[in-house]
């Protein structure tokens, strides 16, 4: 192995790692606020990628049916329990917002306004799926154990990936790169898309850090994650906190999807493994710390890249067996007297 291969592998690992890092952030966020391990995050990635890739045919995105359908379902489910102002808010969030997005997307998609617009449309139509799923599947289970929430997440994943097959079909698609530019730094080639991925990851991370550190809304979200009852007692509407966390996760995951769409072929069910690796990173990072999760994600990407060079058949074995010692180390360091339920 010469140094150019070494550098190429590292670069490849960092790009994959950046995507895992974004998903890890989304997973940590959702878990911290709602104790849900959001397995369907993978579907959100896939759907956004497929939507972005399909937008260059100039047709309104197929996923709009799903968006509107879930919106109506969430409205009907919520309407049983809420009235008055809550019902109006529910209607706005589940009918008006998706409806407006769908309308705008239908209008804008045929105009072919370029990759940036397509990226915005793809994120705008896919990200709201996440909060709708929260309303449908997870909010009613807010008090349940982590295990039950996990199985509910599995159920959601099954249903959503089945719907994905109906909407997108079994074949993959690939998006137009944001930039065809190639930056050559000595022996390493940086494709423009890879640079976009890294830049976007850094921006999202920085943005999240600032949001949580400097805004009261961010602090309220953190507070809900730390002590839900305490948050309710100071007047934070914690159900909205769950919704916010899912919104953020939806935006991050949909953004990741758009970022990888030009890098690789994406399938309706392709997000599961990507999400799983983000999950690995999230847990290695302790499901609590954002920087640790991001670092772990980069590590997973690099290990994966190198093992696909050395022993591609055993790549997953190396990646997954390799995290066991890391888990061991983390678990021993973080001495929990009583396992959380």
């Amino acid at each position: 192995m010469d140094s150019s291969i070494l550098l190429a592998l590292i670069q490849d690992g960092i790009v994959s790692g950046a995507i895992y890092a974004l998903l890890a952030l989304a997973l940590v966020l959702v878990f911290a606020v709602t104790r849900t391990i959001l397995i369907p995050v993978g579907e959100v990635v896939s759907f956004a990628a497929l939507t972005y890739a399909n937008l260059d045919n100039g047709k309104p995105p197929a996923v709009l049916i799903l968006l509107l359908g879930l919106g109506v379902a969430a409205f009907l489910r919520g309407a049983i329990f809420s009235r008055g102002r809550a019902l109006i808010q529910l209607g706005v969030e589940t009918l008006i917002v998706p409806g407006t997005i769908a309308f705008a997307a239908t209008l804008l998609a045929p105009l072919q306004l370029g990759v940036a617009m397509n990226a915005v449309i793809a994120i705008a139509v896919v990200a709201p799926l996440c909060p709708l799923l929260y309303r449908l599947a997870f909010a009613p289970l807010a008090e349940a154990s982590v295990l039950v929430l996990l199985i509910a997440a599995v159920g959601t994943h099954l249903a959503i990936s089945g719907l994905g097959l109906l909407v997108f079909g079994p074949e993959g698609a690939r998006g137009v790169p944001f930039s065809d530019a190639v930056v050559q730094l000595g022996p390493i080639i940086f494709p423009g898309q890879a640079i976009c991925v890294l830049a976007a990851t850094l921006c999202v991370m920085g943005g999240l850090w600032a949001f949580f550190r400097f805004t009261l809304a961010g602090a309220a979200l953190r507070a809900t994650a730390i002590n839900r009852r305490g948050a309710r007692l100071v007047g934070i509407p914690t159900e909205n906190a769950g919704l916010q966390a899912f919104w953020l996760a939806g935006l991050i995951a949909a953004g990741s999807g758009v970022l990888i769409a030009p890098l690789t072929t994406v399938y309706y069910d392709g997000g599961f493994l990507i999400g799983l690796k983000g999950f690995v990173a999230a847990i290695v990072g302790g499901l609590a710390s954002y920087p640790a999760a991001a670092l772990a994600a980069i590590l997973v990407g690099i290990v994966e890249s190198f093992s696909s060079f050395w022993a591609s058949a055993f790549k997953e074995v190396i990646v997954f067996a390799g995290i066991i010692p890391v888990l061991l180390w983390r678990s021993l360091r973080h001495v929990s007297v009583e396992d959380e339920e």
Partner: protein
Amino acid sequence: MLSRSRITLIAATFVAGFGASLAHADTIKVGITLSATGPAASLGIPERNSVPLFPKKIGNADVQYIVLDDGSDTGRAVANTRKLIDEDNVDLIIGSTVTPASLQMIPVVVEKKVPMIAAAASGAIIAPMDENKRWVFKVPQNDGLMADAITAHMAKAGIKTVGFIGFNDAYGDGWLAEFTRSATAKGITITTAEKYGRADTTVTGQILKIMATKPQAVLVAGSGTPAALPAKTLKERGYTGTMYQTHGVANAEFLKVGGKDVEGTYLPSGPFLVADQLPDSNPIKAVALDYTKQYEVVYGPGTVSTFGAHGMDTARLFGAAAPVALTHGKPGTPEFRAALRDALEGLRGLVVDHGVVNMSPTDHNGFDERARVMVQIVNGAWKLQP
């Protein structure tokens, strides 16, 4: 058209599911389990879509098709098989789409003595022939037949060294084994054999490894659109050698996703893929174009794929063998099933969408060289190679 065929199918399912005893004595029931969801959905869906085109009547007997989805999962494929045989009392099993599922279905059909026609590719399903596999037939070409086509093409082009990258599943495994056998026989060296996952987002590591061994050509053994990723990465890394793919990529989406990255790629395929380019003298042409026309009437122009043709071929085998079997017994009886098996084994010179079938007690696939052609991707379309 679509809705009517659906209704027929639903009605058939209804009768089969709830009124086994009501069924007419002269009704042949065919149980189908295909992978319409899960990883193999891109193969299973066109296969299933062909079912409405299957013959509704054979001789005087009506035919009922009962279609189940196994989600590319072996457990469900086996459960479906048991359900079809025990509950619906079918005379023939068609399926499954994937090799591991098909392999697990074999003990069930052997136990029940029901013939089975697999739509999965691996030669392991029907070879080596033994007491159990007597009951099993298979429509897609053996990987070995296709691998030989590739190595022959390579030998002709003077290629001596090949890098291999394939799916880390039964498909990639089967291809690696067959290609290794065939290449060794032709004196072609495989410089390195790499694996990747269907859903992997990057294969840079594998491609760098392959390029480090400097092969004259690279063979990608994957199916459907996921097979485009290695080709793209090769181009991205500046690889200039010849690229080969397998017949698993033969659908329109692959061309779309692959784009200019797969331009010039060679692959073996059933003649079906380029039926319109075949000489009129080739008997396959008429059969294949007929199916294409029927399919596209239902599902729209440009939707037909070689996988759907495999699905159709299962019905063509059945359609040719059933009339013979009907002379030996009533549908639903062990005699009929045994006769159907014998008739399938006795098929000679049957022209199907993918070739000409000559079954024998030792070969339950029955294809010869006529079942494969070499194709090159030229200007984003399949081009038959002489």
